[in-house]
């Protein structure tokens, strides 16, 4: 198993290399002078053109592309993602301010998708061709087909504007004393909206995975031993059926961040997604770059964790 994990780690590093290459290319495609990414704007504003030229030379920005790439990479490794054009703050600190809210939202959404999606997938598979199954199938198709913003607007329309039950957006009620209930009431709608597509995916995937396992020979063996149907399902089938689901969940994480951009916009949720939109509106390229980098690295870490979890659950990998 050790070799397996190290192997996955190395593959992760290779992928990371390509990730940075893609980012670097994007970086260079972006309009504007790359020097702005390395020097704080206030310094930039005061310095004369000679100083900038000197710094440019010092930073090696007039060197060949390959050298520039390594300079950029070196800065990145040291946490320098450049400086926000908007207010001159380092990109990293701007992201730090917002990342908590995004984690809160995406984490809750992922959790909702798992704890609701997987059980309904199981039920749907066990009751194949029943009314419940048809409903789940219909629901999951709708779930993957509905635009996030339309669902969000619809929920705001119903629950906030018509029924007056939930707030239309934000992290918490401004001015009110912080309470868990208030927080939850703000979180529930955006988290649900963000989770719907994943929830539907997980339900469909679980259903098909369980149905696949139901037809396997070992299930027949278990039944031939006299194992009760419930135990066949929860002891024999579930463990096998869930193994591929780990990968599926890990692969949904990037989509989750993507969905967060729209969800945060609809619900005025002050997370990284909205930050990204602000960056676009203001043409704040260093910031946009930083956000993309952080998300890509997070996704990479999630994939690695999934790979390790995989080995823990599946003896065929553990004893390779």
């Amino acid at each position, binding site marked *: 198993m050790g070799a397996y994990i190290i192997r996955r780690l190395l593959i992760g590093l290779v992928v990371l290399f390509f990730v940075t290459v893609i980012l670097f290319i994007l970086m260079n495609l972006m309009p504007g002078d790359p020097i702005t990414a390395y020097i704080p704007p206030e310094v930039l504003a005061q310095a004369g053109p000679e100083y900038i030229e000197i710094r440019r030379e010092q930073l090696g920005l007039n060197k060949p592309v390959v050298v520039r790439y390594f300079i950029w990479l070196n800065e990145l490794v040291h946490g320098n993602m450049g400086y926000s054009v908007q207010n001159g703050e380092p990109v990293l600190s701007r992201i730090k301010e917002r990342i908590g809210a995004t984690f809160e939202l995406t984490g809750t959404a992922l959790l909702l998708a798992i704890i609701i999606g997987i059980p309904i997938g199981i039920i749907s598979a066990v009751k194949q061709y029943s009314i419940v199954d048809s409903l789940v199938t219909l629901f999951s198709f709708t779930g993957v087909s509905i635009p996030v913003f339309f669902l969000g607007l619809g929920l705001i329309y119903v629950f906030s504007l018509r029924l007056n039950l939930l707030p239309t957006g934000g992290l918490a009620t401004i001015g009110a004393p912080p309470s868990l209930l208030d927080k939850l009431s703000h979180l529930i709608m955006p988290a649900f909206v963000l989770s719907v597509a994943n929830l539907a995916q997980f339900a469909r995937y679980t259903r098909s995975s369980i149905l696949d396992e139901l037809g396997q020979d*070992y299930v*027949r063996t*278990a*039944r*031939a*031993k*006299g194992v009760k149907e419930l135990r066949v399902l929860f002891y*024999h089938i579930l463990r096998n059926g869930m193994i591929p689901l780990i990968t599926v969940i890990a692969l949904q994480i990037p989509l989750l961040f993507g969905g967060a951009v729209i969800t945060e916009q609809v619900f005025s949720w002050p997370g990284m997604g909205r930050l990204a939109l602000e960056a676009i509106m203001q043409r704040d390229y260093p910031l946009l770059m930083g956000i993309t980098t952080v998300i890509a690295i997070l996704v990479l870490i999630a994939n690695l964790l999934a790979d390790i979890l995989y080995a823990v659950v599946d*003896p*065929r990998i553990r004893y390779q």
Partner: protein
Amino acid sequence: MMRDQNLLSVKNLRTYFYTEDGVVKAVDGVDFEIKKGETLGMVGESGCGKSVSALSIMRLIPMPPGRIVEGEIYFKGEDILKISEVAMRKIRGRDISMIFQEPMTSLNPVYTVGNQISEAITIHQGLNRKDSWDKAIEMLRQVGIPDASKRAKEYPHQMSGGMRQRVMIAMALSCNPELLIADEPTTSLDVTTQAQILDLIGKLQEEFKLSVLIITHNLGIVAEVADKVAVVYAGKVVEYAKTDEIFSHPLHPYTIGLLRSVPRLDMKKKDKLQTIEGEVPDSLTFPSGCKFHPRCFLCQEKCRTKEPPLIKAENGRLVRCWRYNEI
């Protein structure tokens, strides 16, 4: 009267599958009996319904699309098609056990083999975890797995095909069943491993006083292990007799054809293989009348239109052919 001698008797079993292409009459009239300690060999080609018969006895036919539409299966005098699912579950693994063709896929890949054997013991004998684990190791030893206490902790993918089939046998016999159903138990194994497994089943059969239903397409295996043989063609038993009689004096044209078309080790160079013309029929489009008539060298008008019943021939032998006594 019959009940006393027969551990299992299957009467007019019919199992159909209702598919989008039509009704597949996988088993369409299968009758046989197994006495205590006896071995019955069920021979037939792919799709003839032999595996479905076995699964019907275990009541493990996936429903839908399958359904046992007719027939009786008496096990120790009781029709097990009529008992509840709960009662049937107690019979499975305890009174009737089954082993399958693919020992790799038939074992759960994510649990150790010891774990899978002790599961059956826990269910039927109510032993605690440790005792059933010890019993599982004892069973592994009995089926000839060296270093049993260590190998019990291994996963199926760490074992060879022959070892896996031994694990399946250990699992099947762990609760002292009276009947073992072996569905092509050696088909996926090599010849020398096949010999080991058949030898093992034979030894354990004496030790455990087992009755065995062995399903195979290999006439050689039947000749070596079975006391009686049921030849199945297109969902029906076409001939049923003692093994010696089948091989020395086959009555049904299909049995005759099969025996003549198999190359044998003890053949002379000049001997020519005779063939059964035509194809194995598709279970959706069975021919009319006798199902074998399009390939039969004895076929007459009557065979084309009217299906023969299972006719009683001499020595209590049964044969499904209008013209068996003309051979």
